[in-house]
């Protein structure tokens, strides 16, 4: 009938409850991050990531890059065209002159890549990383491989710009 004198009716946190609460919260956080860190991507997730990367890199190819009239001396982002789908041979030449890692850096990707141009009759040219010894990682042995193809104009001809992005298992 009487209010309990030892526990006043006030909103309060007991020391023990507080400690328990902190402990539980810590367990939840640690568990979550442990799970996230130690659970490997599924193939589907990895593929999705590679497709996005392939899309981003090939989109970059279609642009003029930055600066728009970039040269090997001032390039920030690589683009291979004049902005109207026509490949700028000067830009392509600069791009080809770099090493594998340097190209990857200017493409702003951490993934491995394989790139070539192809006439509509199937004749390839400007094939980069055809030779793994040139610093490239062999692409055709990869299990995780994404490909994106864009249509461009090279020397008044329609060509396919084929890009593979991949990640070794």
């Amino acid at each position, binding site marked *: 009938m009487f209010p309990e004198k030892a526990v006043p009716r006030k*909103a309060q946190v007991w020391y023990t409850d507080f400690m328990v609460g902190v402990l539980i919260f810590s367990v939840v956080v640690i568990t979550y991050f442990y799970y996230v860190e130690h659970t490997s991507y599924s193939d589907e997730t990895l593929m999705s990531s590679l497709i996005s990367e392939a899309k981003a890199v090939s989109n970059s190819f279609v642009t003029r890059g930055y600066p728009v009239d970039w040269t090997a001396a001032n390039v920030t982002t690589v683009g291979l065209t004049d902005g109207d789908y*026509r490949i700028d041979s000067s830009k392509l030449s600069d791009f080809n002159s770099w090493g594998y890692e340097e190209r990857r850096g200017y493409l702003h990707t951490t993934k491995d890549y394989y790139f070539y141009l192809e006439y509509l009759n199937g004749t390839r040219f400007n094939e980069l990383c055809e030779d793994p010894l040139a610093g490239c990682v062999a692409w055709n042995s990869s299990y995780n491989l994404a490909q994106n193809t864009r*249509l461009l104009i090279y020397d008044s001809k*329609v060509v396919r710009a084929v890009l593979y992005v991949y990640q070794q298992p």
Partner: protein
Amino acid sequence: MMAGSGRIGNGMKRRALFFTIDALIAAMIMIAGLLLITSSYVSEQPKSMINTMSQDMLNILSELQVWEVNNSYIQELYDNGSIKDWNNTLLGQIGEFWANNNMSLAEDFAMNVSEGMLALHFGYSIIMDNDTIYSRTNPVKNSLVTSKKLLTGIQKSKPIKGYIAKARATAVSKTTSLVVPFAPAGAGWKGSAAAPGVVQVIKYFELPDVSIINASIYLSLHLDRGSPNWDIVTMNNGSCILSRDNLNLAPGSEGVFRVFRLNSTCFNIGNNSIRLDLRNLGYNAHIHPGTFLLINYNQTDAPEMLAWEHSERLYFDNINSTEGGTGAGAGPWVIRPFHIPTEATNISVSIQVAGRGIRDYTASCTPSRRFWGWGSNHCMRDYDYIIFLNSGTPFDSDDNPVSSPLYSYSPSQTAPYIINGTNLVAVYFNNYEDTVWGQGTELVYSDPINNASGSSYVEVNYSSPPALPYGVIEIRRVEDFGGVPNYTKDTSFSFPAEAEGVSSVFVHPVEQYSYITEVYSDTGFPPGNRVFQSPASRAVPSDIYVPLWTLDRTPLMPNYERIVEASWNEVLPNSTVDYGFYIKGFVGYGEVFAAWGEAVDDAVARLQQVLGSYVNASDIVIENTTMAGVPSLWGPAVAEVRVWD
């Protein structure tokens, strides 16, 4: 819940406490939820490949030109004339075939230039305004994406090359009005029935080569009837005459207002003169405000470019005052108004006043040889010549004039007194108000035909931005105030729908007796902007400039004008508002037509609509220009590429 139940059972209920088991259960739920969300995340179906395919194909087709494809099929089309423009884009060429309803050729061409771009497992179609031109009809299994682009200048069933026309009137026949105002002037002093005092006012004006529809002369005069009849108005040395009896002047009356229609035969093409011969037996004869010629006419005119620089010499009327009998005197006076627009800059005004037969009055300054003016009495002999400029006090005077004096005032002398709006110059020789001390025949001399440089005039120069930057036709309309005589008269007017810009607006007050007249103008009623007030008594011109800023220049919007006579003398309903506006004399390119003749007819019709009812269409000369191959003739059409797999 279990722990909670236990605590209730222990009497420890409703406490804000955490319980270990509850918290653990909640933590498990949270962890499970996070794992579930993470594991159940479904990545977006990767469509980027197919998406860019449609976009790339569309852009390639719209970028690549026909000559670049360079295969035998296209060469054949070019050779046989199916392809006319080697520099056309592939998409443009497809559109051209489609617009010409050559669907078969469009399909073959589209197939030729697009096949091979996409791998065989892709289906695609090329579409113009929902018409499928070519399609690779693979079934849709997964995704379908579309990209679109606007193609200007083409439309189905319309020729690729159309015709547009513009028209410019090089000559028009317009119906307009001209007002030739007489400024108040006098005077024939006193006199007798046998030898009345006489004032002759001669006005010269120029009439362009026009066809007069109707003409009227408004006469607001102060004169005596006298005994014998005489000719009061003589036009062009007798081509038209109005006598005293024509005015039906009642015996004893002095002020008279009459309106007479004039035949076109009264006028000459070129220089015209009107002589007013006013006589009196007592007081002085003079012109009241409201005397003017109103001529409505048709004129063949050409649009003209409005100028920045304005320069005009405005001559005084020739005022000849002849002494009558029985101790009458002679002494001419005249008011010469001139107008400077509100927006005018670089204003320069010079004045020249020439007299003839002027008396150097030297009699002693007895009380009877004094006159009252600008607040005090003055000796007649000190003011044989007085000139006022926008003020009730003299701008200059002369106490020792020669017989034929010539007074010149430079722009620097007049500049401090010039205003934007209506300016008034008032000149008196040997008289002031009701006092006269001249004799014989005295003149304010002006003969712009035979002696322009020796005449009396005001020369006005100023800069003013043109109302419109292209060739225009000016039309003027004159409307009566109407109603009944009153010391306050109101009217309203609107610029017509055809008006592209405003030229100028004047109010012409008609009064028999005037003292201080004010004019107000506004876009609302009652008009609140006072645009003119007589600077001195009786200084009331027959034309008063209305600043354009007081008006709504939007066509069909009302503008209100008010005349107030401060003496409560009546302002007559024949007072007019005279407004000018500009009509543009051209129309630009209009709709596109498949035939040259249709484009020309359209241009003519549009031009006539612009010219409106003020210009006679039958007299318009049309100048046509046609253009072909304009890229924005029709359309735009929507070009679309759909790709699916």
